[in-house]
């Protein structure tokens, strides 16, 4: 499964668990407009670390804030190289 597909699947899963309605996902959609609140995003990142073995947002010294869904996916794809 591609990284992007895993992320999309987990987004849907976390949204279900957190009782959130997920907006139709596009790369330029602001993450905070996706229907996930910050707790849901924090949970998603922890879940993805379990699945993908990496957390691109807290692994380094600086903290990168992804603004869009595209940024979010890219952070994982870049980490995979």
């Amino acid at each position: 499964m591609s990284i992007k597909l895993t992320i999309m699947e987990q987004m849907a899963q976390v949204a279900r668990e957190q009782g959130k309605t997920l907006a139709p996902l596009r790369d330029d959609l602001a993450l905070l407009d996706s229907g996930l609140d910050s707790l849901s995003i924090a949970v998603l990142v922890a879940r993805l670390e379990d699945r993908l073995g990496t957390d691109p947002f807290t692994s380094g010294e600086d903290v990168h804030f992804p603004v869009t869904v595209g940024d979010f996916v890219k952070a994982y794809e870049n980490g995979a190289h």
Partner: protein
Amino acid sequence: MKTARIEAPPLRHCAALGSVDRFLFDRAVQVRVADLAQGTSLGGRLADLAGRSVLIATSSQLTSALALIELDGVARRLIVLPPDVDRAHLGALIADAEIDVVVVDEAAQRANYDVPLCVACSPSIGPLARHVPAAVRTEWILLTSGTTGVPKMVVHSLTGLAAAIAPRTDDDVMVWGTFYDIRRYGGLQIFLRAVLGGASLILSSAGEPVADHLARLAQHGVTHLSGTPSHWRRALMSPEIGRISPRYVRLSGEIADQAILDHLRAAFPQASIGHAYASTEAGVGFAVDDGRAGFPAFYLDGAHNGVEMKIVDGSLRLRSSGAASGYVAHRAALRGDDGFVDSGDMVERRGDRFYFVGRRGGIINIGGLKVHPEEVEAVINRHPQVRMSLVRPKRSPFTGAIAIADVVLKSACPRVEDEAGVKDEILALCRNALPRHKVPAAISIVPALAVAATGKLARRA
């Protein structure tokens, strides 16, 4: 209203108690307690310790126990050094407590101490050449188990330490065992219960595997056994647990959740099972023996067994004659103006009971919402396949922190899919029982969790 305090007799006077021979056991030796009534473990040096400020720094618990029995009522001040205290703090402790004698049990330890006198304590009891009368009310100093900085020295008296120990009303043979180290408050309570109650005591030895310790407890016929919930969870993982059948099972030092109480009930259907609440500073608060987690709300009405309790800002406060009188060389006040000690243990009322939810300092802040790791662990531990769990914070740029759970299963899952299934079940259990910010963001199945020398689950400071 003032009540007269009944002085506990010096411990040596209790050495002759008991209707049958009783012993202190560790892995290497056994000592007949009655031999101490007219004997000494200090090689004729007892008189030199009269009125002194003594650090008991032996490597074994057994020699510490012997020194405590001999020096109560003789030394001005006794400090018991737990084995896990950072050696770098020794100088400060010795200076602040004005230590002039150190008791050791290995010759090589003498070099560690720059004090006027080092005395050796040995488990082979020699004749007490000259009787040294008990002339003083000895200060008993215990060290706090904080993870950073120099430990605080907490001042007790034997009378206060023994305040919660009821006189025995039966002559049944009693053999105490403990997973604790007796050089900390929880273990010292068991040491005193054994010595004052005319019982034998089975001590653990450093580095001894749980299975070997359980085998020794079985061999000496343990009837009363005490430890933290973490100690008990570890013991329940050992097949040797089936060899012991204590009449009394006691938990203290950590929150006893319903799952561990139920597991112990299943393992020891005939035993009386109690969980006790105590702290080094506040002393013993209470014991609960109805098999349920938490404590009845009526414990807060008036004094129970001489202990008054109240809750302020969510934390339990206690006032009793079992509390410490203060700290040595430390400015912090141990009690508030009203005489109550703030335990820092947070409680929550549900129905007619109070439940411990965690430590004030252990709160995880998730996007401004608070979570006590222990309340989440209590839910996770309800899953039938879970042996123990640890909830810890992890940094998150989105919420400041999130809660992560490390879980030990009773038996390893044979397949990865099974493990994923258990994780999902645990998460579902948490979602059912907890508000969504308290549900762990992720669960890791781990082979074991570290238990600190205090017997408590090792939580990172």
